[in-house]
């Protein structure tokens, strides 16, 4: 199977105030694969993820330089339209943050923002993406209830459905299972494996075993620098860098 590149990062540098958070990052993320960004906490994983959809803009005191190409468009270009870039990517955060509205309205939020008004189409979208996030059967009877009434695991799947409903090509996950119980984590992971047929998935995780289970491609960051990247099998079985070897063995964390 060919490896088309979906996101490509060139000479990315991120400064936060006087801190150099990401240093000369160059990497590429393959299309329709699960890419895991791993590394100890504070190494810049989340910052890297947030620069993909420019959510990093909203942090005060941040300077970003370099290029991030998504579908050959440089999204860091000041002229690039942010809402258009973000529409291409669904985001899952560490904890689910349902919007303060009903289950239905949560999923319909994105499509409504982008101008879809007809009830029939919205109904259809809500059903389709709740099914995709494997939540439909649990909530079909109570779509008008507040989203906060769902369990944490269900909320995270709702957030997934909400992100998918704007029909992105990429799903970004920032430790999307870290707040969930093992069973809910497993369901999310299973959904990811299902979804990679249609989407490029990038997840940040500090759980090495999760990366092993899920990832097709691995990116290893350490203190703001890219140490190693490559196909998951090579990365775990035949690491090139001594640092990677130590990290995999659990010697550094």
């Amino acid at each position, binding site marked *: 199977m060919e490896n088309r590149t979906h996101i490509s990062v060139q000479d990315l540098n991120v400064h936060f105030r006087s801190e150099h958070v990401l240093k000369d990052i160059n990497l590429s993320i393959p299309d329709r694969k699960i890419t895991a960004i791993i590394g100890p906490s504070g190494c810049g994983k989340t910052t890297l993820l947030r620069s993909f*959809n420019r*959510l990093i803009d*909203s942090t*005060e005191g941040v300077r970003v330089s370099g290029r991030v190409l998504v579908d050959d468009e440089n999204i860091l270009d000041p002229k690039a339209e942010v*809402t*258009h870039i*973000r*529409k291409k*990517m*669904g*985001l899952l*955060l560490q*904890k689910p*943050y349902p*919007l*303060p*509205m009903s289950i239905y309205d949560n999923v319909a*939020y*994105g499509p409504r*923002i*982008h101008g879809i008004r007809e009830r029939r189409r919205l109904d259809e979208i809500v059903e389709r993406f709740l099914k995709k996030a494997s939540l439909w059967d649990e909530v079909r009877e109570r779509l008008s209830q*507040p989203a*906060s*009434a769902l369990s944490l695991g269900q909320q995270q799947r709702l*957030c997934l459905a*909400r*992100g998918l409903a*704007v029909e992105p090509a990429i799903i970004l996950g920032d430790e999307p299972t870290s707040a969930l119980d093992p069973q809910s984590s497993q369901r999310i992971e299973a959904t990811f494996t299902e979804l990679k047929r249609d989407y490029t998935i990038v997840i940040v995780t500090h759980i090495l075993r999760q990366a092993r289970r899920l990832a097709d491609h691995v990116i290893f960051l350490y203190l703001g620098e890219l140490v190693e990247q490559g196909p998951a099998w090579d990365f775990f079985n035949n690491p090139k860098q001594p640092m990677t070897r130590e990290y995999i063995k659990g010697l550094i964390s």
Partner: protein
Amino acid sequence: MRFLRVTLVPRRVKDLLAGKVMLLLTVLAALLVLVMIIGLYLKSKPVLDSHSLSELLFSTKWRPFRGQFGFLPFIMGTLWVTGVAIVIAVPLCLLTAIYLSEYAHSRVREWVKPLIDILAGIPSVVFGVWGMLVVVPFIKDVVAPSFKVFSTGYSVLAGGIVLAIMIFPVIIHVSLEVLRAVPGEVREASLALGATRWQTVKRVVLRKALPGVAAAIVLGISRAFGETMAVLMVVGNVPKVPRSVLDPAYPLPALIANNYGEMLSVPLFDSALMLAALILLLVILLFNIVSRSILLRVERSIR
């Protein structure tokens, strides 16, 4: 064992004592409202006994020398002035709070916040003087002529404007805190879907902050009801039900402040003034109860 007992006992006594004293103080504070209501009721009993309640509340005839005490002009005066203040203050305060919370750089926010809080510390008489020197002439010379009506400038509008500015700091401060308390991730969730900042504010942040923002407004309005000095200086104090915002008015607090201690030789007058105070207190109480129950319902429906 003995050592333990020696160190523990005084600490425990203090703890017990502190708890009891604080409970007592809390109960006293809560009882104060009740005591006030009862006191005012007893004081206003003479006028309540000699006049029917509907006459007192709904008659517009205020002729204390003939024993006629119709409070409608004053009640309406209070409602008009407060209403105008709310109409002016709420949108302005909300937009300011939204700007400071969602758009402004943190440095701007840190500068502007104390400035707004200083407004709250200015004595109300200063607002009154400013109202007489600036707002009243402005209404007389600019606003009223442009509507082709005559006004001395001492009017509901003048009172409303001064009052609005006086309740700015409370509403802005509290709504700002409430907006800042909305977790950043909720905003991010909306932004990540491609929503603009304004869409995010309108559909998500405000919705999440609604109960708190409503509480901020209620707080501001409660203050507006009772504000006396500044309003009294600019509303004209004419005991007639106002027909437009350019008419003068005579709110309840102004009635009490202007007359108490001076006209007490008139029979039943002091009792009538106590009734005015009681009405004011009950209006504020009722307003608080109603808005609180609405708030609870809203809170339950959005979560």
